[in-house]
């Protein structure tokens, strides 16, 4: 068939028919008779009808005769379209196909075979045989005979054609109107994308528009629950409370087209021939008629399901209406995911702000200045791994040149740890009469805090040091905290001193012991939290108490300046760790006898 012939086919208004026939002689024969009747309705003459009937039979018989056994289950498809000027037929076969010969001659008159192609060619104006790997299509075209009917109009037939044209025009108008409505709705919804819209309100408006445009009577929208285990009802339209549709679990084996669509990622249709199961939850809303259930995904993750129903049994949804459902619901899915992301972002912002406030409060609880107790000098460093940490320290003037040093580490990090650190600080500050007796102070603080700490399974370690400048003496007690490290110039090595008891909050009647130590001139003592000694190098090795003792001795020998010694310590620790980010809070107090 030449190109001009095929392109000419679409110039006039055409109607068409498509038939799928089982691959059997009797079945294709019935199909060709149906085509003949259809062409008769289009006004073809008897001679034309006979010609088309024979040409189609020859083409369809070939499709049956030469199909391989394994493809016998595939149908022979006959499509025919008729216009004012011509008729075109397409016969699809699943044979191995053949090359259409340039010349077709009749076989010997006594041959029993070989006349089919000759007949087809004789009965049509143009023939093309299009082959591909799966199927072949024979395209036949023939001009319609010019009859006198044009000079003597048949009013009945003209009216029928006019009605046919009007019906087609109405269909096109309806489709155009539907497309227009869809586009308008899309533009309206596009304006809301990215805005912080209420998902339920947005979904309700979108679903109502969809129902109207797709001519649906009811709709159900479900969303995947936050735990990802079930589909929860968001909307049931019209006028149904979502409560009538309880959630459905994805793992259940109960009848549910919604779960089926979600699991198989395929639309599921139901109609009077294949209605919903009576035990399907959707049956409560869509007991009769036609419907479709569509599961929707974003980034390959299930978001929910949408079902549309129409109560009229004879009106299934058209392909265009199903496309509309897909478009609207995909749009809705994006809006739902956007709204969730916006919610999460807002929640994160709120949390970050709250943490910032908590960090500010915690910083405000730390001493604003370091009390003087010469000849003893103090230098302090405190770094939190998070904005809000569990470490804290306190330097409380205790009168007569004495200072109480407190260093503590509440289990965990973040706001809960900081809250208890604040409580611990207040508790210790409320017992000034016990400052000079650190062991009793810890016992009293433990008794006070135990009920609260044990209720939430938290605990805190603490080191309390009473520093008396008059005798350059320090009295220390530890509640499960890192030991006090001590170095004096007369000795090459530093050492840990004191005895530790239970952390606070572990044992209500815990006993603590205190150690009194004199700091000779030039000597140094170090209080710290485990965030310092548990720093790791690139090989994963912890700094440890032994290295810390060495560093304290080197710092003491390096400089007599207290702050310079603290910088030296922190500098060497940073070198050891390769400037790795903090994984835990770090606090240290360096005490130096500057006499």
């Amino acid at each position, binding site marked *: 068939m030449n190109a001009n012939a095929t392109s000419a086919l679409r110039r006039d208004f055409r109607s068409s028919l498509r038939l799928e026939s089982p691959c059997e*002689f*009797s079945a294709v*024969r019935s199909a060709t008779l149906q085509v003949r009747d259809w062409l008769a309705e289009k006004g073809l003459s*008897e*001679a034309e009808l*006979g010609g088309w*009937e*024979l040409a189609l*039979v*020859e083409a369809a*018989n070939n499709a*049956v*005769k030469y199909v391989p056994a394994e493809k016998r289950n595939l149908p022979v498809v006959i499509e025919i379209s008729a216009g004012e000027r011509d008729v075109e037929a397409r016969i699809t076969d699943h044979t191995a196909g053949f090359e259409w010969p340039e010349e077709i001659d*009749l076989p010997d*008159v*006594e*041959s*029993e*075979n070989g*006349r*089919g192609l*000759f*007949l087809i060619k*004789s009965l049509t104006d143009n023939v093309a045989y299009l082959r591909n790997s799966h199927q072949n299509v024979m395209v036949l075209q023939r001009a319609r005979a010019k009859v006198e009917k044009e000079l003597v109009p048949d009013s009945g037939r003209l009216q029928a054609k006019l009605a046919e044209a009007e019906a087609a025009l109405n269909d096109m108008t309806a489709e155009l109107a539907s497309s227009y409505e869809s586009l308008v709705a899309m533009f309206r919804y596009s304006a809301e994308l990215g805005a912080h819209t209420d998902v339920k309100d947005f979904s309700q408006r979108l679903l109502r528009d969809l129902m109207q445009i797709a001519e649906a009577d009811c709709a159900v929208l479900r969303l995947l629950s936050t735990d990802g285990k079930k589909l929860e009802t968001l909307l049931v339209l019209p006028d149904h409370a979502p409560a009538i549709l309880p959630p459905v679990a994805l793992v259940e084996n109960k009848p549910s087209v919604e779960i089926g669509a979600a699991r198989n990622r395929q639309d599921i249709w139901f109609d009077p021939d294949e209605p919903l199961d009576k035990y399907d939850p959707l049956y409560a809303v869509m007991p009769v008629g036609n419907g479709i259930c569509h599961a929707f995904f974003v980034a390959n993750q299930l978001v929910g399901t949408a079902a549309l129903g129409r109560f009229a049994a004879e009106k299934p949804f058209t392909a265009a209406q199903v496309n509309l459902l897909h478009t609207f619901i995909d749009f809705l899915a994006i809006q739902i995911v956007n709204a969730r992301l916006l919610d999460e972002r807002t929640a994160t912002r709120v949390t970050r702000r709250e943490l910032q406030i908590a960090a500010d409060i915690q910083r405000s609880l730390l001493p604003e200045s370091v009390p003087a107790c010469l000849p003893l000098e103090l230098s302090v460093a405190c770094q939190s791994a998070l904005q809000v940490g569990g470490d804290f320290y306190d330097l409380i003037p205790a009168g007569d040149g004495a200072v109480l040093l407190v260093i503590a580490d509440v289990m965990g990090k973040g706001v809960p740890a900081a809250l208890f650190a604040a409580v611990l600080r207040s508790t210790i500050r409320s017992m000034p009469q016990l400052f000079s007796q650190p062991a009793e102070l810890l016992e009293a603080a433990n008794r006070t805090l135990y009920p609260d700490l044990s209720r939430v399974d938290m605990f805190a370690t603490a080191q309390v040091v009473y520093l008396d400048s008059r005798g350059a003496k320090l009295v220390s007690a530890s509640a499960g905290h890192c030991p006090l490290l001590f170095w004096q110039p007369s000795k090459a090595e530093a050492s840990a001193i004191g005895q530790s008891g239970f952390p606070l909050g572990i044992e209500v009647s815990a006993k603590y012991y205190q150690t009194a130590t004199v700091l000779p001139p030039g000597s140094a003592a170090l209080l710290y939290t485990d965030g310092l000694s548990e720093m790791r190098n690139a090989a994963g090795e912890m700094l440890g108490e032994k290295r810390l003792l060495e560093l304290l001795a080197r710092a003491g020998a390096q400089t007599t300046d207290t702050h310079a010694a603290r910088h030296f310590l922190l500098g060497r620790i940073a070198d050891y760790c390769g400037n790795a980010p903090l994984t835990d809070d770090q606090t240290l107090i360096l005490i130096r006898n500057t006499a």
Partner: protein
Amino acid sequence: MNIVVDHDRMRVTGLDRLGASNCTEFKQMLKLHLNESCQLVEVDCALIRFIDSDGLGALISIHKWLAPRAGKLRLREPLPVVRQLLRLLHFDEIFEITP
């Protein structure tokens, strides 16, 4: 389809079509009733409004069975549409077509 055998004549009536879906049965039935003495097979075509290349092949097959026995195939009163087809394929040269 009815087949009546009278001495050396066979008459086939009641066919309304002859095509791929019934030509095998047509051939088998005729050959079942044909005997060596048969000189003429008459197929009543007055009711046949459709015949395709396989149906024509079946007629050729009967013709070829008869020819060595000096027998002949006669097609009686084919409708114009069938007659036109027989003429197109030159079958009017080997079959007797009446009237």
